[in-house]
């Protein structure tokens, strides 16, 4: 039993690392524009389908497909930014409905192009077992965890030290004040979308490498990303990682101790619990959302 639990913890941590990458994109856009991009999960899935196409039709290694996935997701993210920034009235409600529309468009676009079949990578190396003492994982899981950590660290450094990163944080904190300091908010918001698209490209390719994809999966990814954003509270990348790992571990423990049918339930219950009990998230600064 102890071994099973340890294995569940390990798998959960690895899974959490991948979730963090998905959630960070959502959180960046939410921070900069106060817009929840309900199509973010579909952006991730788009990259995964690009990886599938590159592998099955071009014979590429799925990891190499990041080169193709990056322009695709960034272009889609830029299109989303362009439309969201055109909303004039009732921005809060209309941006939700708009991105919901995008998620419907993309999910059904995947269905049109790739049908409802479930796909996963054919690469044997990615699916081979990686043994670390008593713990098992696939190569792909460990690899995507490492890539996630590296990207999270890179974005963290970029937000803290680069001019653009500081500008992004400034716009997130106070748009008007940032404008007064000479930061063009529209360009910064576009940057947040592009960054979210780029992170989604990596997250999607990783998702294809370690898991299975199907057109309807994007909604679940968006919800998981939002749960993590809420758990983390706004404005902290280590918080996002910790919340993502918490979600991953809770899901893995549910699968081990109860049943895989209840996996989704865990996240939802965790989410509602945090919304009602700790409205500022586990790691966030004090901020009103009610």
């Amino acid at each position, binding site marked *: 039993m102890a071994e099973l639990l340890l294995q569940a913890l390990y798998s959960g941590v690895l899974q959490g690392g991948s979730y963090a990458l998905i959630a960070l994109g959502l959180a960046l856009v*939410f921070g900069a524009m106060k817009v*929840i991009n309900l199509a973010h999960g579909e952006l991730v899935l788009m990259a995964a389908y690009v990886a599938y196409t590159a592998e099955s039709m071009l014979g590429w290694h799925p990891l190499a497909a990041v080169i193709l996935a990056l322009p695709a997701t960034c272009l889609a993210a830029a299109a989303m930014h362009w*439309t969201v920034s*055109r*909303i004039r*009235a*009732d921005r*809060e*409600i*209309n941006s*939700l*409905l*708009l991105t*919901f*529309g*995008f*998620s*419907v*468009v*993309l*999910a*059904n*676009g*995947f*269905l*049109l192009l790739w*049908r*409802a079949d479930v796909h996963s990578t054919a690469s044997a190396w990615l699916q081979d077992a990686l043994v670390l003492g008593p713990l098992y994982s696939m190569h792909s899981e460990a690899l995507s965890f490492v890539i996630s950590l590296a990207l999270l660290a890179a974005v963290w450094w970029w937000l803290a030290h680069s001019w653009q990163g500081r500008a992004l944080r400034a716009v997130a904190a106070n748009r008007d004040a940032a404008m007064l300091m000479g930061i063009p908010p529209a360009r910064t918001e576009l940057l947040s979308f592009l960054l979210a698209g780029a992170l989604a490209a990596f997250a999607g390719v990783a998702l294809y490498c370690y898991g299975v994809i199907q*057109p309807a999966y994007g*909604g679940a990814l968006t*919800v998981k990303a*939002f*749960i993590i954003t*809420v758990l983390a509270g706004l404005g902290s990348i280590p918080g996002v990682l910790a919340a993502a790992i918490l979600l991953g571990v809770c899901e893995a423990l549910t699968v081990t101790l109860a049943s895989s*049918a*209840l996996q*989704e*339930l865990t996240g*939802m*219950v965790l*989410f*509602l619990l945090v*919304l*009602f009990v700790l409205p500022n998230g586990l790691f966030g600064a004090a901020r009103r*959302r*009610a």
Partner: protein
Amino acid sequence: MTALRNHYAAAAALAAVLVCLLAWGGNPYVMSITIAALMTGGVALAWALLGNLGGMVSFGHAAFVGTGAYVSALCTLRLGAPVPAGILLGALGAALSATVMLPALRLRGPYFALAILAYAHIFRIVATEWTSVTRGAAGLAGIPALPVLPGLPPRASACLLAALLVLAFALAYRAIRRSHAGLALRAMHDSEDATRVLGVNSTLLKGAMLLVSAAMAGAVGAFNAHYIGFLEPDYAFGAMWVTLPIVAAIFGGYRTLAGPVIGSLAVSLADQLLFKEWLPVGHQFLLGVLLVAMILASPDGLLPLAVRALRRPRKDGGHA
């Protein structure tokens, strides 16, 4: 003034349904897609009531549709309740199930929208896993059928009943909007804080709107369960109970009374007759495109756009 126009529009919609009924009452295909459009209209009205009066976007109305469907189906199947009582109980059950969502009312905007979505997921998982009551993914079959109005073919009768249900929703919506509560809710739309200062319990009012909206969606779900005769969790709590009504309500204009109903008839029929012809797989693609286009071009829907165009003749040729 607007209320009066809406009144006429609702009457016109009902008249249109009656005309269809007389002309194609014997055609089961036309009847069945009209019934589906009316169901969508019912959920769209419920969604628009919460959005317009309560100021809240919900992506979780599938929870109420599914709960209403299951409560009614189980009451009639297991307890032998008559179908009309079952539908009433379904509406009540959906409202009761919405009470667990009341804590979400202190959340705003995206937080509320996604909390409701989380509840809907939980409801679906519970319906799937609680097999001793719902029979899980195997589904419930043999749900008692709707009563047939004398002198009409079964589908035409169901169509008329659905139209009456939607009309009842529209009248209830109008009554709420005209009441003191409706006035307070409209004031809350402009400034919730100012309205609270005047002594209005805004949370109570929003909660009431959530329950009313849930009851409406539950009644539609219950009605649909008896019309279809079969239920399974993925259908009863399916995402299409959210997508289609939202697109329809936005298309028609969710801040008006007739908008969601007219929008539902237009969008639902277009989806069935045209979109499915063009794209047998993934025809909701076009619904998504429509939603994006509407939010960009006219977030208040086509009805206000049409009214504006009629008021300013010759400006853009009355095209809406």
